């Protein structure tokens, strides 16, 4: 309760929450805001108004203009919200699950198992994240699922470490010993008594990571191994804008809309998560209380 009250009373986190709410609404009402056309195989395929390369400025037909290949920017920004939520929440949820399992096993059983699991985590940490994800996506092929697999594979270690150290701290507490003396099984101890108390540190980490995972996913798109051509994905649309950033000699801002709309979408999305995460960290960190 204290946490929620703080989030709502702090102007920065309130702004973050409102932004998030706006994105949720956009994602939910995407079919109303940007109705897919009949001949589309999937609503995530951005409709195109031809095959001409040069972007076209905003007009009645295309609210935000069209980018390279005449893909409709407005449509992609709206449906891209769903893509961003899928990637951000999906990657973080799976990473948290893996990390929690590994961390809990390592901390609870200790000894050789702890040593092995944590060394494995060390090795994954010593891998350059973006490059590793890039290689894995390049092997798995284009699409949202390969991106999620790649980001999860190299993104679970932080949670494992946090959960492990939290459990090591909590395990020795009296109430855990009490529960054990009642004959509670290991699984029951971990899941019911210990993990709930490790919830907040993981929550902070996960909130922050949601934004950065969307950033990483879009970076993959930007580097050319992301989603399929024309898929409603902000990163890919920013990648398209790269070829048009220079404009023409007398009018450098000629194609501003190719970068401005998808760029603003991803910036605000990540900003929202960071604002909420930052405030969460503040309120949950005892060092910040006066």
């Amino acid at each position, binding site marked *: 309760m204290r946490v929620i009250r703080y989030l709502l009373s702090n102007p920065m986190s309130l702004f973050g929450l409102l932004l998030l709410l706006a994105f949720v609404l956009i994602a939910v009402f995407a079919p109303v805001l940007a109705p897919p056309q009949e001949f589309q195989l999937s609503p995530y395929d951005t409709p195109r108004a031809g095959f001409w390369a040069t972007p076209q400025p905003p007009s009645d037909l295309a609210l935000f203009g069209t980018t390279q290949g005449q893909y409709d920017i407005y449509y992609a920004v709206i449906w891209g919200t769903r893509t961003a939520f899928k990637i951000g929440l999906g990657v973080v949820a799976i990473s948290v699950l893996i990390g929690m399992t590994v961390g809990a096993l390592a901390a609870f059983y200790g000894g050789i198992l702890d040593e092995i699991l944590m*060394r494995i985590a*060390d090795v994954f940490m*010593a891998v*350059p994240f973006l*490059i590793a994800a890039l290689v894995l996506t390049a092997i798995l092929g284009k699409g949202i699922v390969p991106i999620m697999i790649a980001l999860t594979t190299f993104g679970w270690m932080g949670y494992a470490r946090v959960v492990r150290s939290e459990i090591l701290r909590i395990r020795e507490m009296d109430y855990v010993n009490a529960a054990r003396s009642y004959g509670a099984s290991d699984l029951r101890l971990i899941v019911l008594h210990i993990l709930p108390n490790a919830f907040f540190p993981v929550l902070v980490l996960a909130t922050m990571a949601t934004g950065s995972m969307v950033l990483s996913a879009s970076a993959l798109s*930007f580097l*050319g191994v992301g989603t399929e051509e024309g898929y409603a994905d902000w990163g890919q649309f*920013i990648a398209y804008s790269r070829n048009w950033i220079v404009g023409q000699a007398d009018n450098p801002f000629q194609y501003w809309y190719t*970068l401005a709309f998808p760029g603003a979408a991803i910036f605000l999305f990540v900003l929202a998560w960071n604002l909420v995460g930052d405030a969460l960290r503040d309120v949950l960190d005892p060092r*910040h209380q006066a």
Partner: protein
Amino acid sequence: MMTYALRRLLMLPVVLFALSLMIFALQMSLSPTQRLAAYAPSDDYLKGGQESIRLMIEEYGLNDPFLEQYGRWIGNILQGNLGWSETARQPVAAALASLFPATMELVVLAFFPGLLLAIWLGSRAGIHHNRWPDHLIRLFTILGWSFPTYVFGLLMLLVFYSTLDWFPPGRLSQWAVTEVTSVGFTRYTGANTIDALLNGNLAVFWDAMRHLIAPVITLTYVNIASITRVMRTSMLETLRQDYVRTARAKGMPRRVVELHHARRNALLPVATIAGMELAYMMGGLVITETIFDYAGLGQFAAKSASSLDFPAVLGFGLYFAVVLVVLNLLVDLIYPLLDPRVKTR
């Protein structure tokens, strides 16, 4: 102390070994035909058709059991032969060595001024906790942190290159490249700025700087948040200590207490995070270098990763792991010097 350092260094081969196994496993997920490309001296093998491909796969043993192939592969690497990079069109080791100075140039210029700025901002924010300097600094850093590097980079290009034409992409202008590769110009370090100064060629120096400014600003702004954040938290904690109150009670001026008593101690946690940040910069300039078309390690790694140039990926991975382990070790070794209370284990 020495045993601790030794134990940490002994971990390095273990990490490197596991890393090589991981990358090799990724590589093995491709079909033998795909992997053949890495061995084939030229595209000629394709002309020979199916039969020639089959023979080549046979010759290089690409259908052998996993462990057998891994043994052969690691044997080559242990002899210092990292292999040939198709992306760079030269041996991997040579490519890494030639690109390293370029990346270091960027890292040094972006990291150290950024670190000082972050420390200054963080301590300001901590001192003025919950007042407007704190809010402003927080807003400024959080905005930078939320910018996708490439969006910020593209904006920089839009404003400072296409509109103002101040900071062009790349590493050097065409005329400067001619100058640098000419006979009269000695390459001491491979870093353009330093070499230009050593050769007394100020024109080339300014040209190199002009190309560095935009990526440096991008890197600094996008990366400043985490260190500022740690500095702020640590400052808040230190300012609440008894000794700070005692110093104030003795009648010491507020500024002296804040800057000399509190800030020095608050710097300790920054050392750890700064070490990590430096390591990630040395291996993670992928996006910045790609946007500004700056030929460094990051751009090379990204290119080779997306074209599945495995020898290059492995070489880069090994380089990064070494940087990470060594820098973390350095931070651990420096820490007791900063804080005498910390006894090395």
